[in-house]
């Protein structure tokens, strides 16, 4: 019998792990008080990533083994969406090459945006892909800089054989302003942490949790996994104790290995919990932000039947350690470097051409000749097949999920790149198709001809004159 609930889940964590000790080494002269936080590492997005590209990777992680055509709605939750007016979820939809007949929604404005998005999906009856992503730009030498991290997660909700079902939920909304960021501002402004802890987390969440447990008819001890996406030390334990939730149920908030991924963190923690959850376990997800959302799930016997491609643990294992704080600052626009005149090249996008070519540009959809089987990127009216230039025979051939191999490569120190040298080259797709593309998330200083690659959706260029960003697919070492 079909039920409604969580059908699948996934996550994404950027490959670079900036060491907090490296941040503190630079800033200790000014902010010596942050020494206590100067341990562990935080995930930082590459210069060519934003909340949309990260949400897309999390969606791909969750869609492993799922028929993409079943998705009826795409949601993206974030307080750091790249576009204030251009549907961000629509970009995710195009990059996933979903059919046009799907709904889409962007949800923003609060640290509980992702749980609110998930609750909305769980309250409906459609198959919804709920994504959440956050890329923080905290002020240098701030506590937030130490505690935050970049990540994304995705949950697919719908009718089928759920791995978890919502058994109760409770939301409260109060304009408690513990921190804020006005539209267009880069940084958050925080009020005193002691007040936030006592009057916010404690006074707002404790009664809410009690109310949820009462709704569910459960004692705190019935909770197996208590997920509190809050970076302040001791808060999850304090809430658990008050609610009678066992100490062992309090989940790792991933602070040491990832950092706090803002509005996305609730779904990141949920994805991490579902990775190791057992049938019958009860998961309480409690997110805070101008009130709170509380979601109580029960894990079903289907758990284990669906697995993300990598999941939180897999992404955390895919890592490159970095001590290059200056590079991180530059990539966040927090440090001005002399980029040279080559960086002045105008990256204006012709929106007409983007619309005509949206499947190729955003979805990496190439063509396959119905007569000869020749695969090519991009599609063209006349086939590239040297022996048979068929006309008008090309069918859509999505290449984003097709493995590729390095054919040629270079490390170009002359062309402008925010992360020089710029690695690019020709790649061959397994089963046909070839293109020249950039390589990203690449750790060493040499590539091998024939090395395996996986395509990733990234920012290709920023149009700084007009406030636009151009997305395209790049090749990363296979993982």
């Amino acid at each position: 019998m079909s039920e409604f609930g969580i059908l699948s889940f996934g996550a994404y964590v950027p490959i670079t792990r900036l060491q907090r000790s490296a941040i503190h080494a630079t800033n200790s002269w000014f902010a010596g008080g942050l020494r206590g936080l100067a341990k562990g590492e935080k995930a930082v997005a590459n210069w060519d990533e934003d909340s949309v590209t990260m949400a897309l990777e999390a969606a791909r992680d969750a869609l492993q083994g799922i028929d993409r055509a079943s998705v009826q709605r795409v949601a993206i939750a974030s307080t750091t969406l790249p576009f204030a007016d251009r549907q961000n979820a629509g970009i995710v939809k195009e990059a996933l090459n979903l059919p046009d007949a799907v709904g889409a929604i962007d949800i923003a404005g609060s640290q509980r945006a992702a749980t609110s998005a998930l609750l909305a999906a769980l309250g409906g009856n459609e198959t919804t892909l709920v994504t959440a992503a956050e890329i923080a730009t905290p002020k240098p030498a701030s506590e937030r800089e130490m505690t935050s991290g970049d990540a994304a997660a995705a949950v697919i909700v719908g009718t089928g054989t759920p791995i978890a079902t919502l058994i109760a939920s409770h939301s409260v909304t109060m304009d408690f302003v513990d921190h804020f960021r006005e539209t267009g501002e880069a940084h958050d402004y925080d009020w005193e942490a002691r007040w936030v802890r006592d009057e916010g987390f404690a006074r707002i969440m404790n009664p809410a949790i009690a109310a949820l447990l009462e709704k569910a008819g459960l004692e705190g001890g019935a909770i197996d996994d208590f997920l509190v996406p809050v970076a302040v030390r001791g808060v999850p334990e304090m809430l658990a104790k008050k609610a009678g939730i066992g100490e062992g149920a309090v989940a790792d908030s991933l602070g040491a290995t990832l950092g706090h991924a803002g509005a996305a963190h609730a779904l990141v923690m949920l994805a991490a919990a579902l990775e190791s959850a057992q049938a019958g376990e009860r998961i309480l997800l409690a997110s805070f932000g101008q009130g709170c959302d509380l979601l109580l799930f029960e894990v079903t016997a289907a758990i284990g039947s669906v697995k993300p491609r990598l999941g939180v643990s897999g992404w955390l294992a895919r890592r490159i350690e970095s001590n290059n704080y200056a590079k991180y600052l530059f990539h966040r626009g927090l440090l001005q470097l002399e980029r040279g005149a080559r960086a002045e090249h105008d990256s204006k996008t012709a929106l007409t051409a983007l619309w005509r070519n949206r499947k190729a540009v955003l979805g990496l959809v190439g063509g396959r000749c119905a007569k000869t089987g020749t695969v090519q990127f991009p599609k063209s009216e006349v086939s590239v097949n040297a022996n048979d230039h068929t006309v008008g025979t090309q069918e859509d051939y999505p290449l984003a999920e097709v493995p590729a191999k390095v054919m040629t490569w270079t490390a170009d120190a002359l062309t402008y790149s925010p992360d020089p040298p710029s690695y690019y080259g020709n790649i061959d797709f397994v089963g046909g198709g070839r293109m020249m593309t950039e390589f990203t998330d690449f750790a060493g200083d040499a590539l091998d001809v024939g090395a395996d690659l996986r395509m990733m959706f990234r920012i290709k260029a920023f149009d700084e004159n007009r406030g636009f960003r151009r997305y395209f697919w790049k090749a990363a070492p296979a993982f």
Partner: protein
Amino acid sequence: MAKGIRDKVAILGMGCAKFGERWDKDEDQLMLEAYEEAMADAGIEASQIDAAWLGAAFDAQNIGPSGIPLAVALRLPDIGVTKVENYCASGTESFRGAVYAVASGACDIALAMGAEKLKDTGYGGLPVRTRGTTHDMVGITGSAPGNFAQLASAYRGVHGVGKDDLKRAMAHVSVKSHANGAKNPKAHLQKAVTMDQVLNAPMIAEPLGLFDCCGVSDGAACAIVTTPEIARALGKTDIVTVKALQLATSNGWEMQAQGWNGSYFHTTRVAATKAYDEAGITDPRAQLSLIEVHDCFSVTELVTMEDLHISKEGEGWRDVLDGFYDADGPIPCQIDGGLKCFGHPIGASGLRMIYENYLQILGRAGERQRQDSPVFALSHNLGGMPNQNVSSIAIIGRADA
């Protein structure tokens, strides 16, 4: 069936400006410098020129689009002036226009000018530019060295050549061209370099170091062409004719299909085969006297030796190291210093190559003159990138060859 261009058109005169960082000159002044030398060589008046072609690749720098800049610079007598652009092969493209005009009988005398003013950008290397709205969304702009450097990774993989062996052969290409450029008063770079200097230079695009890259220069070169009959009627006795003129343009096969392995220029192989056929050359390794090729980067020159069917596939690097292409070798390549040292004012380069071949055939090349009198001289002018390009080949020679 067309019989080709062989011996239908003669070069009446040629000129070439001094290449280099011509900070004090505009592009029209450089064009005039080449024009005055060509006109003095041709011994004609401007009123005798029936049509002109201008080859320029980066017209956004200095002169702007259309044929007007050439017409204005030379104050041509209201004749037709066509501007052509075919990436770095624009120079040979302008020559092709003028030669075809004469061969068709539509013109008695036609002029080809190639010119470029690159040093108005404020930075080194070629100007960064768009390749079209759609390309910019899915393609790589990159830099020229980054695009050509990829030949090396593929060549090593395909032929099993060690990284150090290939790097040494590439270095030999540059050392040779610097030695040649040192004897050329019009060259941009006139200083010899050592293997050590080349091998230890800063990396520009792996594995191309600074000395693996050609100069980026200002300059212009000019040719005036007519029929052999008119040339004789004008009093010329030592006639140099066009033996072959071929252009091959990628149709996307290399970049989009999977048949090309990245280690060679498909177009150059096609153009070379057709050019030898057109010129009646059956054994290029034995019959060519000298060659000027598009050595934008050392590795480009190296693989071109194979694409021109002179060196065997996978063995070009050995011929290079053996000195086969040195100034005193069997077939000197870039005896004038090439793009590497004569310099590379994009639109001018194809005509500069023909200029050197013309001087060598006529015995006018001064200190760098080849002693055994050249008969057939080939120039190879390439535009674009290894995976998508235009490749043009011009063979000129003595009229009686």
